[in-house]
């Protein structure tokens, strides 16, 4: 098992390299001159040249590429153009806020979505199923930033139950600041996971081995959970991965709505301020997150599905 994890980790290296290469291509080769982007259309040629020299943009492309890779591996993303702080510091400050938001919303989403899906599947085409269907249709349609704004207006602005902005100081305060943003994303995750659970469970409950379980004399709860849901975990693992990724991308807008610190907020502000080094750092962090979450899902698969060969 440990060997398998190690091998998967090694397998991820080319993926990481490929992702970094694509990021590099996006940042350096796509149309648009970062120097002009950073300094504006009215910068003098001298200013542009000085900027390029400072950012290493005057070197040959291949050298820039290796500098970029080396920078990523040594966690040296340069310094912010706005406040001259190391990009790594900015990332390290903001990262925990994004991680706690993503994890909390996925957790809420699973805790609400999976039971709803089980309920819907057990009462297929009856009232609970229809209620879950309506819930998931709304959850699929409502944009996270709109839902977040509604919650903010209702619970923070009008009722005053929750803080209006910020990430909070200290453990309890952080959790307090986290609740509304996490619920915003969790609502949408729950809609997705609820529907996925219903579909997967219904599919599994029609399988031959479920009939075997009934024939053994198992009662409904045991059939649904021990045999049904346990097998539905396979598609649900994929769903959990997708949910986590969606929560990660949703965190960008939610951080903006609730004015929370976080990688998304950092990246969006950097884009607005044309802070080239920070943009690059933020993009790399997000890209690495995607690779990491996909890797983790592969590993979880091995645990939930014994048929996957571990060698």
């Amino acid at each position: 098992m440990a060997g398998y994890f190690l091998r998967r980790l090694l397998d991820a290296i080319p993926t990481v390299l490929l992702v970094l290469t694509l990021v590099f291509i996006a940042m350096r080769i796509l149309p648009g001159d970062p120097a002009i982007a950073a300094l504006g259309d009215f910068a003098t040629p001298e200013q542009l040249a000085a900027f390029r020299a400072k950012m290493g943009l005057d070197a040959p492309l291949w050298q820039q590429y290796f500098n970029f890779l080396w920078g990523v591996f040594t966690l040296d993303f340069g310094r912010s153009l706005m406040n001259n702080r190391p990009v790594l510091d900015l990332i390290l400050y903001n990262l925990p806020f994004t991680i706690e938001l993503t994890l909390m919303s996925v957790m809420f989403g699973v805790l609400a979505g999976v039971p709803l899906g089980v309920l819907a599947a057990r009462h297929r085409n009856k009232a609970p199923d229809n209620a879950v269907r309506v819930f998931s249709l709304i959850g699929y349609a409502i944009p996270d930033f709109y839902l977040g704004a509604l919650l903010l207006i209702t619970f923070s602005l009008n009722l005053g139950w929750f803080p209006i902005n910020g990430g909070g100081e200290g453990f309890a305060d952080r959790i307090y600041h986290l609740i509304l943003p996490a619920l915003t994303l969790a609502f949408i995750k729950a809609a997705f996971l609820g529907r996925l659970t219903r579909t997967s469970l219904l599919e599994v409950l029609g399988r031959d081995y479920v009939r075997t379980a009934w024939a053994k004399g198992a009662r409904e709860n045991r059939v649904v959970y021990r045999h049904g849901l346990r097998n539905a975990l396979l598609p649900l693992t994929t769903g959990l991965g997708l949910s986590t990724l969606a929560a990660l991308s949703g965190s960008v807008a939610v951080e903006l709505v609730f004015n929370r610190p976080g990688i998304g907020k950092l990246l969006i502000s950097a884009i607005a301020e044309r802070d080239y080094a920070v943009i690059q750092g933020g993009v790399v962090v997000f890209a690495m997150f995607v690779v990491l979450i996909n890797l983790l899902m592969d590993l979880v698969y091995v645990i939930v599905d014994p048929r996957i060969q571990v060698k």
Partner: protein
Amino acid sequence: MMKGNVLEIRDLHVEFGPKDRAIQVLNGVSFDIPQGGAVGLVGESGSGKSVTSLATMRLIPSPPGRVTKGTITFNGTDLLALPLGKMPDIRGRDIAMIFQEPMSSLNPVMKIGDQIGEAIMLHENIDRRARRAKVIEMLKLVGIPNPEGRLDSYPHQFSGGMRQRVMIAMALLCRPKLLIADEPTTALDVTIQAQVLELMKDIRARLGTAILLISHDLGVVADLCDSVVVMYAGHVVEIGATEEIFDTPRHPYTRGLLASIPRLHGGEERLFQIPGSVPVPGTIKKGCPFYSRCGMRIDRCRTEMPPMFDFDGSQRAACWVTAAEAHAHVKEPAQ
């Protein structure tokens, strides 16, 4: 009620689909299984064999299916009159079932030992160690080599034949009085088929378990069963002891089935084939369901469903023509 029958099915009717345009799948099926007996249920696919067995377990998916009439008496209790909540106590403990597809009938993410052990855990208060011992004993009985070492394996690590042995072990763990085997060998290689049949014979001899063997393969039935029930389009068309049925089939459909078995010393002539195919359930409203494919039909068959005539011995068949030839009559029901 006659003594000595573990299962008596009487006039069983099952339909599928919405009530206003329901399709009749079983039209009055009746037969008995004696204690420790082995009965073969034979017919082409679509004849209602599997529905009969699922009805006995009360596992007909509902919706769309439902039993509309009849009784299924197991050891003196009408199963159809029991509240559905009582059935889990009977399934697996008193009546066990194995299925056609050993490949898909085992839970792919549960260890073999746990899956088999679950059968006894559901019915008896028994500790882990004793359960394990029983599972090992049963795996030995069904001929799995090195059972201790296989408890932690998953189904995908077993071959098809081994999986069917596991299914049989699971079914027999609680020493049920009746084992329903729905096409247990159909999905297996011929050599493995023979082994599984041998195993079932052996188990019947050792444990005295009654067996209802569902098969479209008359050869398999002849090998294992004392008596045979032939089904066609939701009707029982012939019943009798195995030798009687094979020596003197009384229903034209049974004759057709027997004629289509390849014989070792058969001549060069083509294997017999019953023309046409099983009618779509619900399309036959009156008359004999076999009418459209029958080579012996008379006008009466088109309009009137023949009753079960009593022939010599225990044999009974529903055919106007052969009954008239053999001067068979409808006996009044006993008692």
